């Protein structure tokens, strides 16, 4: 058991932090970038590609770096620290992860190659207005006709769905299972309406009408692969949340140290410093759980349950820290001109993208009777 980063991992963190600090070290830079479509900086995306980060988790034969979940977690945490709006988790972990897990060799070569080089941004079109954090599809139907497949239905909100070059789409199969399909951005019968999310990122309504699609991999039901990919994305989002909470807490502590009221700095008010201490407790417990979940992901244990644990812990922590960060700042915390509120906004988005804390708790609760105690270093995790 070892919770320490090795020197290569520390180097990776430093490199990522350096790249992102240049892009978003000043929070006004982010505000400028998210103000206009596509809601992120294509140049920064290219730099991420140049550094090899867009291929981090993929096999070297497909242009990737063959790194593990801990490395991806490091990138996610640094992204969270400055709220970099690039669709890293959406494109690399979620869409790329599905291609890597399910795709044929040809698909991996093409899609992961384009992703790694920064030339193709894929996204996973999965959520539907009528469903709630399920691994299966119900609102988009796949039909086989002749030699090909077409999709019909609506996906929303699809992260960066208007900008994405390729959509990995989940769809109901004739037998009721959920299949995965590749749809090109220029496909016929594809209508995409993008918009801004409250946190500055982008989503889209994506309509399919007899849209030509290619099965990802060998076809058939992919619910298990989707559940796994969602779990990996939940873990990555947990790390992004840890990075965001870390900055929110640091910013708040700095404010308490410097802001004066009634002739003294705010850190003279014990009621405020105690609340900052409680924020630290929330943060460190969330950090431990997220780290652990990445290690589970790197092994052979139950990733889905580990992801739920990380999700639950970061959800509670994110709400706690997000709210307190604003409250301890006072009025300035609610403005768009000061950075701390944007962290609350992003933490709120992360909390609802792939399942909130109650969702994770409910799933864990269903299992709670089946074992006596949890050993995070033992079965079913290690």
């Amino acid at each position, binding site marked *: 058991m070892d919770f320490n980063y090795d020197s290569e991992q520390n180097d990776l963190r430093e490199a990522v932090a350096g790249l992102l600090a240049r892009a978003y070290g000043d929070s006004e830079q982010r505000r400028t970038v998210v103000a206009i479509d596509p809601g992120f900086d294509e140049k920064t995306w290219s730099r991420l590609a140049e550094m090899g980060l867009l291929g981090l988790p993929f096999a070297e034969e497909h242009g990737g770096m063959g790194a593990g979940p801990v490395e991806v977690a490091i990138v996610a945490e640094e992204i969270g620290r400055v709220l970099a709006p690039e669709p890293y988790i959406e494109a690399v972990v979620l869409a790329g992860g599905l291609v890597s897990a399910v795709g044929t060799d040809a698909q991996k070569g093409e899609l992961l190659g384009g992703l790694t080089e920064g030339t193709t941004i894929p996204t996973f079109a999965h959520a539907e207005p009528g*469903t709630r954090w399920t691994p299966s599809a119900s609102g988009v139907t796949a039909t086989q006709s002749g030699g090909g497949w077409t999709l019909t239905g609506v996906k929303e909100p699809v992260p960066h769905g208007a900008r994405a070059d390729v959509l990995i789409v989940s769809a109901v199969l004739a037998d009721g299972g959920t299949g995965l399909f590749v749809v090109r951005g220029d496909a016929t019968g594809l209508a995409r*309406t993008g918009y801004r999310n409250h946190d500055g990122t982008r989503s889209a309504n994506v309509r399919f009408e007899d849209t030509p699609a290619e099965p990802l991999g060998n076809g058939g039901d992919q619910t298990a692969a989707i559940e796994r990919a969602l779990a990996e994305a939940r873990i990555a989002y947990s790390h992004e949340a840890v990075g965001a909470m870390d900055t929110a807490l640091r910013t708040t502590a700095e404010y308490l140290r410097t802001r004066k009221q009634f002739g003294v700095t705010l850190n003279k008010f014990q009621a405020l410093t105690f609340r900052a201490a409680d924020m630290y407790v929330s943060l460190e417990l969330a950090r431990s759980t997220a780290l652990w979940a990445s290690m589970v992901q790197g092994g052979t244990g139950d990733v889905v349950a580990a992801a739920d644990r990380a999700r639950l812990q970061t959800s509670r922590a994110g709400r706690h820290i997000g709210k307190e960060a604003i409250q301890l700042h006072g009025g300035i915390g609610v403005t768009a001109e000061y950075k701390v509120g*944007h962290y609350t906004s992003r933490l709120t988005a992360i909390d609802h993208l792939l399942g909130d804390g109650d969702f994770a708790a409910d799933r864990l609760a269903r299992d709670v009777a089946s074992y006596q105690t949890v050993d995070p270093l033992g079965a079913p995790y290690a």
Partner: protein
Amino acid sequence: MRLQLSPELEAFREEMRTFFTTQVPQEIRDTVAAHRHVTKEQYIATQRVLNAAGLAVPHWPVEWGGRDWTPLQRHIWREEMQLASVPEPLAFNTSMIGPVIATFGNQEQKERFLPATANLDIWWCQGFSEPDAGSDLASLRTTAVRDGDDWVVNGQKTWTTLGQHADWIFCLVRTDPTAEKKQRGISLLVFPMDSPGVTLRPIELLDGSFEVNEVFFEDVRVPAENLIGEENRGWDYAKFLLGNERVGIARIGSTKRMLAQAKQHAREITVDGRPLLDDPRMAARIAEIENDLVALELTALRVVANSADGKPHPASSVLKLRGSELQQAATELLVDIAGPLSVASFAEKGSDVPEWARVATPHFLNYRKVSIYGGSNEVQRTIIAGSILGL
């Protein structure tokens, strides 16, 4: 002790309910109910409808449009207004500067300002907070120096809510920098927002809205007759005014409405084919918030019944503190019901995300303010600990 309202009060409540739900344009009430942006014109239109019916400033002296109602009547009036999604009369006019002028102003000021203030012919904004004086209001630095028949004002205010719509500002200024206590030496001036030397900078809020502003004063000349009350007694007027600020700030009717909406939406959202509202944890969460709200409403009624002397009951801090917490709990509940749809805030035509789900998170983020403004919850705890518990 008696639970029921008297028949007279029942009739009064019915009268209010009927008025608000029939006389205020539906379109305006829909805007409020949907948590959309209320325009300046909508505010003005509503207040004029209310004022024409004597329902804009019932707590003012009868001479200036007041109704001599009991605190309970005023409570019912306010709650029914919120339940009916009516935008309330502009607080800066009706709860703040209006009562100050009515109480401390001279006859000429009363005649000049009160009717126009009640009818929102003048839109007032507040010039109290400053960048380096948040909760510590008395540290303000904006100065007014006497020069002939004028005061010359220099300095900066912030958090001036809806200042972008305002015709006039009421402003705390330091008129005696040599006063021993910082609370002394402050005066209350009023002047038009288009006076030379006044500039306004809107501050964007987290939800993308513009509600508050910075206001800068550079050698603004204010005629001496625009001093309200006595020179250097502005702090007393500010305390009088801020006492009124806490009343009605529990916003129980408004939170009730949000909970009703939450139930409706939780019925529409399905999880594995079943309405979210049938989920035992979701139902219990709603039941708990609702019960807290019942408890708060009952406490408000108790406080209202015991504040006959016109002074705010010290327990009104409980209403502000808990009221803001419950408003925030309701906005958070709506975000959680919207779930994955809650990110889609600025979706427009072409989106299948219902409007309530789009606005849920911006509303939640915006409502972080309610535990900060009007005396932050930390200030309310200080008041409770100090004046009630003697700590």
